[in-house]
């Protein structure tokens, strides 16, 4: 089976993760999951990408585990871990054990002040509930690559955690294996919700030069909330380690259109810096880039499932389409999802993906 598809899962907390789960159900039914060459995740998209890529090979098992996680939530656990150390000690023995093995940082003999915060807590929870000590290279689907993107607030550069390489263009490649839980937590440190994750890594540049840098990792969506930039056709291997050149792109976008505009107000006080980068790479322009790539023939085709899509703009909506209004109010966080919300968002994801797939992807890919 030739893997010719790049899958991009956008940010947006559990709303995004649930939406992407629905999209993946449609892709499974359409038998396209085995065609995916690389999955790119941001924030909540990173969570689902990792659950799939590092999860059980059978789709039903993956679906059940992802459903469990989203229905039970991470938020309460994060709070417990961060604010009630005694409870954490009791509940997260496994996480503590993982931490003792150097899971949460790479000291390399240099001590860096790293006060544990709620994002560290998220990493711990993810270790405990989902990923254990799995590292980025341990993809359970042969032939699939994974790229989870976070943003370094210190340089506003993208830091990409990948199954083949991790690092950033400015400093080079991170020399040690990265744990999936850390990568997901960093990518998901949504500024309005979670503080940035501080980590010190040894980076190796192309010329073999090694140097230690401290990065301040926050939600990858600050940089590119759709996760498309890593899939851009014709990227030069001189500027990035992540060159996939997939002819087809499937983009799952859990954004909600104009509702998103509320988010910056939240962030304004604390993160004016990321505010600027959000504007630099507006989500809308990312979406229109897909059309440009297709029109100029740089890719052969794409499918875009967009949670916030206006229902009346779907050319052939299913009769039982979950309307946009039913999911529009759902917040971007990691709290346990109610059954009705989970059903609505996953079903809308499945429906939108099923509707757009035949429209955009040429038959050769399907």
């Amino acid at each position, binding site marked *: 089976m030739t893997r010719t598809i790049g899958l991009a899962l956008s940010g947006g907390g559990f709303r995004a993760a649930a939406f992407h789960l629905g999209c993946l159900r449609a892709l*499974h039914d359409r038998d396209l999951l085995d065609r995916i060459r690389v999955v790119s995740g941001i924030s909540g998209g990173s969570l689902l990408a990792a659950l799939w890529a590092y999860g059980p090979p059978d789709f039903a098992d993956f679906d059940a585990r992802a459903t469990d996680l989203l229905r039970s939530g991470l938020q309460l656990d994060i709070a417990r871990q961060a604010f009630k150390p005694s409870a954490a000690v009791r509940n997260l023995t496994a996480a503590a054990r993982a931490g003792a093995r150097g899971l949460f940082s790479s000291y390399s003999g240099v001590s860096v002040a790293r006060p544990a915060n709620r994002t560290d807590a998220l990493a711990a929870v993810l270790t405990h509930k989902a990923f254990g000590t799995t590292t980025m290279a341990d993809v359970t689907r042969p032939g699939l690559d994974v790229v989870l993107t976070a943003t370094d607030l210190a340089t506003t550069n993208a830091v990409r955690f990948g199954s083949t390489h991790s690092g950033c263009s400015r400093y080079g490649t991170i020399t040690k294996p990265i744990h999936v839980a850390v990568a997901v937590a960093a990518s998901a440190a949504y500024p309005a919700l979670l503080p940035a994750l501080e980590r010190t890594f040894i980076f190796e540049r192309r010329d073999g030069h090694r140097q230690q840098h401290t990065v301040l990792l926050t939600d990858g969506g600050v940089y590119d909330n759709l996760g498309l930039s890593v899939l851009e056709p014709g990227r030069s291997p001189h500027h990035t380690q992540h060159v996939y050149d997939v002819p087809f792109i499937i983009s799952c976008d859990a954004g909600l259109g104009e509702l998103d505009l509320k988010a910056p107000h939240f962030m304004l006080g604390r993160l004016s810096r990321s505010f600027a980068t959000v504007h630099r790479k507006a989500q809308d322009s990312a979406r229109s880039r897909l059309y440009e790539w297709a029109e100029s023939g740089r890719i052969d085709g794409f499918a875009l499932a967009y949670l916030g899509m206006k229902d009346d703009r779907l050319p052939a909506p299913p009769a039982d389409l979950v309307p946009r209004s039913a999911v529009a109010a759902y917040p971007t966080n990691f709290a346990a999802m109610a059954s009705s919300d989970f059903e609505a968002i996953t079903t809308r994801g499945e429906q939108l993906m099923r509707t757009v797939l035949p429209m955009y992807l040429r038959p050769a890919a399907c």
Partner: protein
Amino acid sequence: MKDSTTLELTEGQQLALDQLHRIVQASRGSVAATHVASAADGYVEARVSVGCANLLRTQGGLRLRSVEGITLRIPPNFPFTAPNVQTRHTRFAGAPHVNWGRHLCLYRSTATEWDPADGMYGFITRLLDWFEAAAAGQLDRPGEPLHPPNALTDRTAGLLVIRRDAPVARPDGPWLGAVVLHQVNDIRCDAVGWLAVEDSWPDSLEQLRESAALPSGARAFLAPVVVTTKHLTFEYPLAARELVESLTRDHITPRLLLGLTGCVAGHNRTLLCPDADASTGDDEDTPAAPVHLLLGTPSRGIAGDGPRRTHLVAWHLPDFADQVGRLAVRTAFSGRAHLAELGDEVVRFGTDWLDRQSIRWMRVYEARPETTVRRDHTTPAAWLRGKRILVLGAGALGAPVADMCARAGAAHLTVADHGLVHPGILARQPYADADTGYSKARVLADRLNRIDPHATCVEALVDNVTTRLSALDLHSFDLIWDCTANRIVRAHLERARRTDTASWPHLATLMIGHHATRGIAALSPRGATGGGTDVLRRTALTARADATRAFDDLIDDFFPTEPRTDLFQPEPGCSDATFTGSAADVTALAGQLAIGILHALAEPVDRHTMAALIVRVPAGPTSTQPAGPRWLTWPNDILATDEATGYDVRITPAALAEMRTEARRGARLRGPRVETGGPLLGAVDDATGVIFIDEATGPPPDSLLTEAYFQHGLDGVSGHLAARRRATGNISRFLGMWHIHPHTAAQPSATDRAAMTSLTLPLDDAPARALVLIAGGPAPVWHKWLATGDSPDLYVHLAARTASVTAEPPPPQPPAHLGPAQWWPGGYSTRPHSPVPVPRKGSRS
């Protein structure tokens, strides 16, 4: 340099001398110019000396003196004619690129190599390069074509076209024999075959024609040929004595030449005047055929390595040679002792006679494969060589396409059209005033037959294409061009092709738009499931589905929803509506479409891929330019046959993929045995006997899904169908319904059969017929479909509705013995309904 001011100089010559003067000044003594004088022919001559002392010399190089003098000849219309140079000596004679002993050949083609803007600067640079190459022995570089020897030809001596690869001498002696010449007209003969003396020669003209594949009635004769073992000269003399002398050095004596000439002349008499009695001497003085003596030498280099080929020159001898030669044969070569003395005398006489001749060299044109490269050899048109082609329609598209096929060297071409040449079509179709009233196909075939009668045979079919189609052996063709732009012809081809796609030739269907600004070529390669009608139909669907709206102009031009009203009738009242467009428009479109099709055939990526090429002609420099050429491609459909009607059911891979998606979704959520289904969109074409399934969708939300049956719901169906009809411009409509029989045979159950009478959905616009499609199969087949996508067993049936639309469909009746059944709603539900009231009776669907 002097005297230039006192000469009568043209403006150009003054310019040349000024430039030369500056070169001399700048050259610091390595170039000097003296003795500027007018020549009789209006040229100005100057003696130019070139310092050669510092040139790198090699063993094989031309031996140069430290200063070489040449005469530079400047034409009156310099710089629009290049100057030339000659030496005042003949030391360079025999070197490559030296003609007539004195002329240095600096340019292979002045048209491309001589730049008037460079003037004398460019020329002197070239001259210095020549000396440099000459000193280094690189005038003919390895791997480059060798400059062939020259012979100063005489136009009145006639023209030879060499069509067959020439013989080569063996190392031990010359090749002696005859060439079969086909006399095309008074001045031209084609060399079409070679006969060595040791071969047996044809005894009659018929045999001769047959041996050379000439048509009956062709005028043909033999001419003597000598091919030497050694290269003779780079320039052939005009005095026969010189030639005879150099041949004698290669053991080709005048005696041998006379004998061969006589032998061939005698055989010509046998062939051409079989009834004349040679011994009576009737018409003894009149030769049966002209005497062309062909002389071959191993002097022809070709690009790349490899042995030299035979270079041919031809000497047109006076008729007297025929007589002398035959006389020599009858005496010196008679084998009779008492004639030997006389024979010697004849040969002596003949030799003297030859020595006195001045040679009339014939023009020789090369057309033999070994020394020529076809100008189209790297183009996609090379695919056409030797192929059998059928061109339907001899109009604006068909005529240029047929012309392209003939020029590309197709072996056989059939042009079919039952139309006649009208005055109006001359504006854009390649016919002439004199053709008016004649059959287009016949006029076209006559003209194309003249392009290359040796390689291409063109046949006219003057009849209605649709009625004659069955009479043609279509399988014998490699490619059919449908240039009729005729729906009826297209439908005929689709119908004829449908039962026989594997052996049908490639089919290309060409069309141009109403103003000849756009063209479409639809390609149905051998083995493709769809013909022209099918490919154009899916072109329209794809164009309408394109989200970038890149094909809006195409839809408006070729696939409008409403019939066009602005029809063009060039002769109102008495001509068919046609398009407007010029010869430039239609020829450009025909050429572009043909190039695309030939590319696709020459480099097939997937032989079973249907494709359509869209091209647009350019607009003016200030207008918005139309988009460039675009290809659309489709994989083959999945085929099934409706047993009742025999119709072809063509299921797009996308439609079957959608059914499979629903089946996999069902297996994921509802377990392996629950049936599902949904509506089908497409069209029935009764004319061609094809049912197109374009799309399938999942079960409407109010459907009823159980392990025993599938009941099709209605929620949202009308709206969906209307939306799809709009989006496809009415091409894709409600066609019927599909459902699955997981793990069991793809055969209708009793319930299915009962339901067929009222199968169509109770919709307002339900058609009178509907297609029933059942996908099923025993467990291995079924699992394979779900796991790998290999096609399941398919049952298709076009059912006619007999019950009225308003009648309620029979209520679902799952078998009572199954007990309380779990049933699922359609749509995107993820949960079953809780236990339903158990239906009491009925049968499995």
